[in-house]
Every structure is written in C-alpha cells, then in structure tokens.
C-alpha cells in the first residue's frame, strides 16, 4: 500500500508556491478576495482548512506558532490545529500571543496589541460580505469590481429602520484601504477597531470557498456605518470576574440552572497574564491546568 511521506507543514512545495502567489496578490490589493485552488486537508472544510493552508504556506522552521479559537488556545479546534502543525512542521508552539510569530485564529483578535513582524491568520467561513444579500457569485464579483456597495448600505438602513441599531454583531463589514468592502470573519464587532492601522500583517483564508484576502500592516480598516449612526463597539457592563479587565471581550459562563452567570475574558492568554501580574476580579481562582475528568 502507498504510505505518504509528508512535506514540511504538510503541503507540497508546488501548492505552497501557488498559495504564496495568491497571498502576494491579496496583499497588493488590500481587501480583495483572491481565488485559489484550495486543497483537501486532513480536517473538514469549514473547520479551518483555509487558515491552515495559509499558515502552512508561510510557516518556516524558525517560526513560533500559536493557534486560538474563540479567544482560547484550549478549545478543541485550536488544540487540533496546533497538534497538526506540531506533527507536520515540528515548529515551536506557544500559547502566548506576545511570543508567537504566527497566530492562527478563529473568530477573535487577541487583546494584546500585535507588533510588527507578526502575522495574524484568520479562519474565514464565508468570505463574501455581500453573500447574504446577493447569493450569486457572478453578481457579487461585479459589485466589487465596480465598487457598487449600495446594497450593503441598504441592509444597514433596514436594520436602523427596524431595530434602531445596525444589528450586525459579528462579521461586521469593513472598508479596507478606502476601496474594498471586506468581511473580517466572524469576529465580534468589538474587535473591528483592532484591525485598523495594525502593525501586524493580517491574512484571511477561506478553504471551502477558496478565497484568500489580506490587510497589509498599517492599512486603514473602517467599519461601515452612517454619519448619524456611527459604529460603536459593544461595551460589556461589568469587568472580567477573574482578572478585573474592563476593556476586553467577555465570555458568558452559565454557572447554574437558576440563571447564574459570570463573565470572564474570552482571551485566556491575556486573562492569565493579567492574573499573573496580580490583577483580580470579583470571583478569582487560580485556573487549574488539568481538570479531574478528561
């Protein structure tokens, strides 16, 4: 039987070359979705194959990789992907945002500001911001080419007319480099401001939909809004119960079946860092590394 021998980071060099070309094109046209021939990866489509292909393409032996999902490095998806790269690339992995050179993320941007030389790779399910307004690829391609984004504003108008607010809470559309409208992936709108003028390179990979796009460092990224209904990131009402942070995105934990709730930082690395520095919230406890049951 044929047993495969895997190249560094799984993808063969020809595939990496093809993807690098797509990435370069994406960087040259910020926010524009570049089609690429996505490969079948050993994890299912929809589970991060686009992000994995981008990471596999740019990873070098001296890189330090972190993988987070929903803000935590300990979620099943993040663990699975980090192990994949540990096995196929043998690179050093970390759970520290500051130490990583490449961070692959699903649905959150780290709280700690990124620095120059880092690359943030986003996992994207639906790259097309207009998809739910216009299902046809032929039509959305034309709209991007002609910068016809009226339909997007119609949606925002409708939200305000119906709810009094723009009712998009995640995957909030942005305009990149004052030209292309882009979907930032299902990060909460809370995270949108972090993309603007960011020191790191931001790459977006959609495996199933076969698109790559990019925001080069120090590029303008502006959330769509109306002058009289400006974009406002969501504010939580209380600080993190573990570390007391007041300006981070919080996860809601259901603590009992009588409506008991507590809110803790979604970014586990950031929260642990703050706790290590002595910050405390109202319900602190040192997190255990291993739970009694696996």
């Amino acid at each position, binding site marked *: *039987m*044929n047993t*495969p021998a*895997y190249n560094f980071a*799984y993808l063969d060099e020809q595939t990496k070359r093809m993807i690098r070309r797509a990435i370069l094109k994406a960087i040259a046209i910020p926010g524009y979705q570049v*089609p690429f*021939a*996505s*490969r*079948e*990866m050993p994890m*299912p*489509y*929809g*589970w991060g194959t686009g992000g994995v292909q981008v990471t596999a393409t740019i990873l070098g032996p001296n890189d330090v990789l972190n993988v987070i*999902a*929903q*803000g935590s490095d*300990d*979620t*099943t*998806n993040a*663990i699975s992907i980090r*192990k994949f790269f540990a096995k196929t690339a043998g690179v050093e992995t970390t759970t520290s945002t500051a130490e990583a050179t490449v961070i692959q993320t*699903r*649905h959150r941007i780290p709280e700690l500001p990124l620095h120059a030389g880092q690359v943030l790779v986003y996992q994207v*399910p639906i790259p097309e911001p207009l998809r739910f307004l216009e299902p046809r*690829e*032929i039509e959305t391609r034309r709209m991007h080419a002609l910068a016809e984004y009226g339909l997007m504003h119609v949606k925002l108008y409708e939200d305000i007319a119906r*709810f*009094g*607010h723009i*009712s998009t*809470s*995640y*995957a909030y559309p942005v305009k990149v480099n004052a030209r292309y409208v882009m979907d930032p992936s*299902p990060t*909460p709108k*809370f995270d949108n401001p972090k993309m603007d003028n960011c020191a790191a390179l931001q790459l977006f990979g959609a495996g*199933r939909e*076969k698109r790559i796009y990019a925001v080069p460092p120090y590029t303008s990224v502006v959330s769509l809004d109306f002058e009289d209904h400006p974009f406002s990131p*969501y504010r939580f009402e209380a600080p993190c119960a*573990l570390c007391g942070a007041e300006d981070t*995105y*919080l*996860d*809601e*934990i259901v*603590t009992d079946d*009588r*409506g008991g709730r*507590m809110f*803790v930082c979604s970014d586990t690395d950031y929260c642990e860092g703050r706790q290590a520095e002595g910050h405390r919230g109202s319900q602190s*406890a040192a*997190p*255990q*590394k*291993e*739970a009694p049951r*696996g």
Partner: protein
Amino acid sequence: MYVAVKGGERAIENAHRLLAQERRGDLQVPEVTLAQLSEQLALAVDRVMSEGSLYDRELAALAIKQARGDLIEAIFLLRAFRATLPRFGATEPVDTGRMQVRRRISSTFKDIPGGQILGPTFDYTHRLLDPQLAEGSVPDDPAMAEVSDTATPRVTDILGRDGLIEPSPQADGDEAVGDLTREPLSFPADRDLRLQNLARGDEGFLLALGYSSQRGYGRNHPFAGEIRFGEVEAEFFAEDVGFAVPLGSIELTECQMVNQFKGSASEAPCFTRGYGLAFGQSERKTMSMALVERALRARELGEEVLAPAQDEEFVLSHSDNVQATGFVEHLKLPHYVDFQSELGLLRKLREEFFEANGQSTLKEAAE
C-alpha cells in the same frame, strides 16, 4: 466558585481512544477485512472511489473501515489522501467504445448491435429480504457463453451517424483540459470543469436534482440511450518512448442520455445529450449525472433557466459532499463568542422594547 477548566487536549485524546474501541466493536465478533469489503460491499467501494476521485479499491475499502461505514467520511479520507499524491501526468482519454462490456442496455431501441446485456443487476430482482443470505450463501455458477466478437458500438454513435443527435461537444484540441483540483471553479463554468464537479458530486444530491427535472423542474425529455459497465484500458503517453503505454484497466460505468431535440434557423433539429461517468458499477450516479448535466446546458441550448437543476451556480456550488458536510458539521465547533455578540445585541433590543412599551425588564434578572 468558578474554576477555569483546562484539559481540552486530554479530552480529545480520550475521545479518539473511545472511537477506536467503538470502531472495533465486540471483540468476539471477527474483524472485517479489506478484502471482504472490496468483494462483498463492492458498490460501497465503487461509490467511495468515484466521489473520493481516486481509483484504488484497497484504499477505498480501508477508508470505509476507518470511517465505520460512514461513506461520506470515507470519501473525505480518500480525498485528503489524494491531495498528498504527486501528480506526474494525465492519461490519454479513455475509449469507452472499446470497453470490455459486462453490462450494456439501451432503452431507445429494442435491439442493438452487440445486444442488450443485462449483466449483474438488481433491476429485475424482487425486493424481498432474503433470510438465507443471513446464514451465508453459496451461489450457483453463472451461465456461461462464448466471448462474442461482435462490436458494441455506442448507441449515440449510431444516432450520430444519421445526424439525429448533436455531436458530443468537442473540447478545443489546443487548450489544456481544466483541472478542478488545481484551479478554483468560477462561473460561468466550462464543460470540462462542470463534468469533473458532477463526477465527484454527491450521489444523493444529483439523484434528487435529476428526479426533480423529470418531474417538471426543467424537464428535458430524457431517454437512456445507453448505459454500459465494464473494463477499459487506461494509457499514459510516455515522452521518452514516444507512444502510449498501458497503465492497467479500470471499471467504469457510462451513461448517455438522449434528450429533447433542438433546432435553429440555420441548423436542422436533432436530439441533445447528457453525459455521466463514474468508477465501478454506479448506475444511479451516472444516470443522475447525465440528467443534471443536460439540465445545466439549458443556457447554451437557449432554454429558459427556471429550475434548480438548471441553475449552474446552485448545483455546482453544493454538489461536493466533503465541502457540504464540513460546513454543516462545523456548527458543532464552539461558537460561543459569536453567540455572545448576538446575546448582547438581543438583550439590548429587548430592553429597549420593554422600555418603549412600559413593561418591566426585571423579569429576566429575577430568575
């Protein structure tokens, strides 16, 4: 007191161990072998090869075993493996006209050169569960006959000789054949990419669409011109020797549908066609594929595009079951951050609603 739990990694490892145990099942029961799967569940293996886009019975059987019988999971395994294989070229186009036919039928003519050969088929069996089979079976020897020398020309070629059916759309000889696994599909799609997409497309999806076209959602009056199943030679043109060398033979099923005729101001009317091809004995798949292929040609044949089976973007974007299952099942992944955003917005809207309507918002908090 809340304790942030770590240990996702251990949980995953334990889950994998449990899975391996479930896969093996009761140790008293003999373990299934790849040969058993390939021989006795041959049609499952055929389907996995077709939709996995890889002709290797042993690997397909392994995939089915590893997937515990979940065929789409097996197809995924095979596709992922295929993606790692180096590509050293393409075969010469396979000539199904020279197929060593094991089954060959046509519904358009009562009799045809080469005859109607039923072959191994469920078609005329009575669907009665057979308890005998549960004990084990020793089938009688099949009927034997001399190998026939008569040619089995394709029915569509017979019709074509009189100009009664449109010629099969020829590819431009100079242009390279597109490769769906190397270039992303874009619309409108050329016929080569369309056929590749359908060949690896999910049988159930294509079956439903083909069925819908027969029931009036884009009807094109199909007849099964020919369905043939058997072995064909695959050949590869070797540069250094300057001729095509045989690689081996593979089993294929081919279906040619004869459809609604069409004419124009400058051309006499003739039948149109739809084409289906798959590995192994896969009749349902090839027939459905041919129905859908013909439906997707609506625009180029000047027909109104009204039905889902005719909608190229819809059909080709959703035919791949590996992509489909990936995205559907990805909903199992944690989505609590996005959900949190929705919760936040919803709470705010409810608050405003109750304020505007003079009701109390204390209800939620009091619970």
